[in-house]
């Protein structure tokens, strides 16, 4: 009874606001300004929009514009500086394509997934058939291997915006592979998309049988076209290029296939090769971060995100003195495996210049490295030219100046 009352009250309140909007009426409450509705009321009821005062948007990477002169989308960064919690809205989720691509317009009734190769029973599924099978929903991040800070990058969107996190819903890949009957000589799979270039990656069979999902849902709705509608392979904790969009085919094989997407990651050094598929423990402070402005000395809640391709985030530490001392933060969200995890830290800024850092530890006990740690590991000089080999998961410094402005500490 009580909940129904609440619902009714909520409905009436919403109705009044909509009525006000429809009439284009003037001020109703403090802070509310007049404005013509962008859409008709029945459209707004059918499909909700964010407030016109919320303007956070994605931006293309500076190195190559999207869309380019041919209309191709390359890499587009999510606005981490405005993020709250751990879920990235689907409309703000980062997008990336290997060579620049058009978003395919796929009719789900025509889409098929084929599983073949070294299996006893090759299978083809329609989308309806896949949805008849047992499914799970899990929260996982996707991060591009190219998500690396540069001294020239100003904001956290530019330094770290090629990572996002969503709730994914789909059928465990292991279920589909067992249904097809994987043969014992098999050791890899090649997963392929249906877009024009038919992007494909080789994935270890051990990973495919472990926790991969064949997803049709994202954040409570069908996966959006930019994210792979109608079907995307989720390979939790692996870099973005493995998360095959528009998934149409899985071939079970007995070797690394050295596809076009694979060969881009080969390296003569096995140590570097080992650092290029699974994402290492990584964190970044999203507030205060580059380009933001503190109002003056006083209390601030430092907040940010941490994630690891190896599992859950065990802890996140923050330093407000450039790394001389580290303090534990509180986790402000559930810590799901291979998911963004939100941390927070009470901070009283004394108005003096300082450098803010965060570093995380995952449930394997692996600690996010600093650039100095990495230089020491490879026995190379620590300077501006240091290029992190494999995926760059190093600590990001943010410099706070005495006027309260925040800048990239690598610059």
């Amino acid at each position, binding site marked *: 009874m009580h909940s129904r009352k609440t619902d009714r009250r909520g409905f009436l309140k919403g109705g009044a606001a909509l009525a006000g909007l429809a009439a284009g009426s003037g001020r109703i409450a403090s802070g509310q300004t007049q404005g013509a509705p962008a859409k008709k009321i029945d459209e707004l009821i059918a499909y909700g929009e964010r407030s016109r005062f919320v303007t956070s948007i994605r931006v293309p990477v500076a190195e190559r514009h999207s869309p380019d002169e041919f209309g191709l989308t390359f890499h587009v960064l999510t606005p981490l500086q405005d993020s709250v919690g751990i879920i990235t809205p689907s409309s703000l989720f980062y997008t990336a394509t290997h060579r620049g691509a058009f978003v395919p317009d796929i009719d789900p009734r025509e889409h098929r997934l*084929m599983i073949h190769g070294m299996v006893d029973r090759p299978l083809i599924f329609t989308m309806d058939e896949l949805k008849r099978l047992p499914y799970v929903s899990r929260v996982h991040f996707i991060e591009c291997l190219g998500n690396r800070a540069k001294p020239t990058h100003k904001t956290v969107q530019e330094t770290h915006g090629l990572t996002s996190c969503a709730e994914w819903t789909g059928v465990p890949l292991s279920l589909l592979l067992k249904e097809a009957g994987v043969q014992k000589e098999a050791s890899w799979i090649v997963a*392929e998309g249906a877009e024009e270039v038919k992007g494909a990656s080789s994935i270890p069979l051990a990973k495919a*049988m472990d926790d991969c999902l064949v997803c049709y849902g994202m954040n409570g709705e069908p996966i959006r076209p930019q994210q792979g509608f109608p079907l995307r392979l989720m390979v939790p904790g692996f870099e973005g290029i493995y998360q095959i969009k528009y998934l149409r085919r899985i071939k079970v094989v007995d*070797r690394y296939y*050295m596809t076009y997407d694979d060969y881009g990651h*080969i*390296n003569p050094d096995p140590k570097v*090769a*080992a650092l290029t598929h699974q994402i290492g423990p990584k964190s970044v402070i999203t507030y205060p971060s580059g380009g933001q402005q503190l109002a003056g000395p006083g209390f601030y809640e430092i907040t940010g995100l941490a994630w690891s391709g190896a599992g859950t985030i065990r802890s996140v530490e923050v330093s407000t003195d450039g790394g001389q001392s580290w303090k534990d933060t509180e986790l402000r969200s559930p810590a799901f495996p291979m998911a963004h995890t939100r941390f927070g830290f009470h901070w009283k800024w004394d108005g003096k210049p300082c450098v803010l850092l965060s570093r995380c530890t995952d449930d394997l006990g692996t600690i996010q*490295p600093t650039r100095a740690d990495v230089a020491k590991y490879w026995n190379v000089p620590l300077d501006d030219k240091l290029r992190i080999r494999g995926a760059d998961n190093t600590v990001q410094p943010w410099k706070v100046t005495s006027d309260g402005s925040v800048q990239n500490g690598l610059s």
Partner: protein
Amino acid sequence: MGFRRFLFVMAIVGLCRTAWTQSPTYGVGRPPSAEEIRTWDISISPTGKELPPGHGTAKEGAVLYVRKGCSGCHGATGSSGGHAPTLIRSKDTKPASSAPCLSPCVNDSNAMAIHSPFATTLWDYINRGMPIGKEGSLTPNEVYALTAFLLFKNDVIPEDEVMDSQSLPKVKMPNRDGFALPAAWKHGEPRLEGYPNR
């Protein structure tokens, strides 16, 4: 490891293998026809076992390179005309970058499949991904010819060498021994033991 422990481990491994190949549980989906598998399967192994019948030479490829519009983006000589990556391997010894480039890749030594240790990567990519806007339109003979042309332009094969399903996988690529495979992946193990040490 003692012999009994070894037996135990092997039994577990055996059980896992059995579980993977057990009979279907749900019976949803249908078996594809042999023809469906053949037309869908465009993944070419380094062994070349999926390569279709056909053949081509660099001379034929040179004509196709212009006729199919490749030169429009990659330049008349393959050294890039602006929009697309160079198709000619740089002579310097600088190792290829470990990550796909974020810039337009023009003249980046990492950008071209000629760096792959296997010539099959080149065939696979031209077949699935070129020319832009008309992907998948090339015939096997055309793909063999264009692959031969790029291998010739990069001093990998002579101009008159015929590329087909037998000869292509045998081509010794410049980077044949210059790569490491990713390490075997295991759940719950760090990607590189001891990285970073502190």
